[in-house]
């Protein structure tokens, strides 16, 4: 089973890396970029086939390690 965990900075948390990327896109002349926030994507291969169990395990993984919930939010998707 394939799954994806997406970790993003909470709103209001300063993201200097996103700001730098935003500036670079603007200087490249990419049209219509209003703002950029940088995050992380984890593609995870799971051995079982129980979707509910997988979701619980991924949440556990995100809470324990993948995200720092002081500053980050996460989203778990089991892709099947």
């Amino acid at each position, binding site marked *: 089973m394939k799954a994806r965990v997406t970790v993003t900075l909470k709103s209001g948390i*300063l993201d*200097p890396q996103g700001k730098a990327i935003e500036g670079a896109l603007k200087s490249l002349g990419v049209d219509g970029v209003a703002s950029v926030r940088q995050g992380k994507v984890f593609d995870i291969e799971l051995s079982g086939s129980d979707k509910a169990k997988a979701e619980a395990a991924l949440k556990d993984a995100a809470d324990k*390690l*993948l995200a*720092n919930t*002081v*500053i980050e939010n996460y989203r778990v998707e089991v892709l099947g």
Partner: protein
Amino acid sequence: MKSAVLVFPGINRERDMARALKLASGRESAMVWHAETSLPKGTDLVVVPGGFSYGDYLRCGAIAARAPVMDAVRAFAAKGGLVLGVCNGFQILCEAGLLPGVLMRNARLKFICRDVHLRVERSDTPFTRGYNAGQVIRVPVAHGEGNYEADEETLKRLEGEGRVLYRYCSPDGVIDERGNINGAAHSIAGLVSEGGNVLGMMPHPENHVEDIMGCTDGRGLFAGLVAHLEHAA
């Protein structure tokens, strides 16, 4: 003082730290590998040194904070044991939940490697008793992620409880934006846990302890720890 210096893959300041501890206490530190599940018997100070544990993968300190030895450190701290985390060690202690908040990328995005000035906010703690309150000391920093941030409520509590022990300042002790090298909230360079027994700080006092280093302002921190532990013993 029986100190234990933790060693994680990618840490590179553990020998500087052990040398500073020996200079202050006259005793060798135990070097404790991250895979250990206990601390040496009789340990009365745990030090988490600086470096780049696990290459700063995921987030600075994130993986080291989950190493087996950290459970032993948590138990040690819960009983009131003294823990000092410097630089990456500070990041590890935050990630381990032993200190609140988080260390973000420096506000101006640059890795900063130079001497900075710190104001010692109070002198009645094990980590500052070698100094006077309001004293300005000069110590080096070397970090890319030292911008301390926490939510408003946490910052209010830290200030209210007098838990900020070291602040970035100008050479004459003024707290201002210019002296705040990395953009840290309230110019925080070092803070303690609720119990006052866990200190995390970004600057490296261990690198200003001998004349050959050009400055010995870092000595006070280690001398204070020795005095505190000898007094307690």
